[in-house]
């Protein structure tokens, strides 16, 4: 199964923005700019992940619902070249 590398890179970029904002917000919880940024990118990445999981399988153990088969155990796993 081919991994959607380009789509995965989009997800990695958006997730990264979310995490950077989250770390910043831990230290500055009242910053409106950071909150708005966090919401914007969280929303964007949610859609991308839904699309990705539909095509390529679950990203977390909780997303394996609605599948006829248990896809969680399918490779490639993140440390393999094919997954990157």
């Amino acid at each position, binding site marked *: 199964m081919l991994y959607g590398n380009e789509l995965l890179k989009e997800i990695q970029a958006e997730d990264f923005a979310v*995490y950077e904002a989250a*770390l910043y917000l*831990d230290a500055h919880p009242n910053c409106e700019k950071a909150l708005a940024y966090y919401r914007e990118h969280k929303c964007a990445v949610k859609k991308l992940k839904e699309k990705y999981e539909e095509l390529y399988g679950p990203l977390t153990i909780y997303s394996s619902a609605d599948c006829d088969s248990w896809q969680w155990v399918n490779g490639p796993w993140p*440390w393999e070249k094919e997954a990157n």
Partner: protein
Amino acid sequence: MFLYEKKLQYPVKIKNPNAKFAKIIISQLGGPDGELAAAMRYLHQRYTVPYGQIVGILTDVAVEELAHLEMVAAILYQLTKGLSPEEIRAAGMDQYFVDHTAGLYPASAAGVPCDMKYIGVKGDLLADLNEDLAAEQKARVTYDNILRLVDDPDVQDPIRYLRARELVHYQRFGDALRIAQDKLDEKNFYAFNPSFDKICPNGGCNH
């Protein structure tokens, strides 16, 4: 609890295996300033911190260090995949190989297994935050040194990324220190240990 996401935080795609590089980079897996030690340090310090923002910072940095641990493992995995025993011997990796084959065993470049002696959990908020600041700097230096020794751009790329993250963590621990200072008395920050002594201003307890 911990939720695993089946992707790396940053891609690792290495075309050319190289056991010599793996021997060096393994220090970021199991060495004194590596990602495993960092994750264990922050995860264990957070339990007795009385201020939610600082617990948040420690937790979220710790989780990111686990993600980095996985990236370092991915680098090592791809650097050693498909090597023959002759190539392994030529790279000087035979002593590691005899005990671990191509498995990823958390140890330093010198072969010392990862050790909790590398971490401090002093149970004092200010001492622990100062340790964390130092830890991020030491990790940065380790990545600097890897960049000096490893000249494959496929490897330098994720290493550069991991190094940059250490600096951001350093800033976050600086923020944590500032938050701690705001909660304490500037005339004497050391009058008591907020991680241990109960503080009840205005009749309420922090715990």
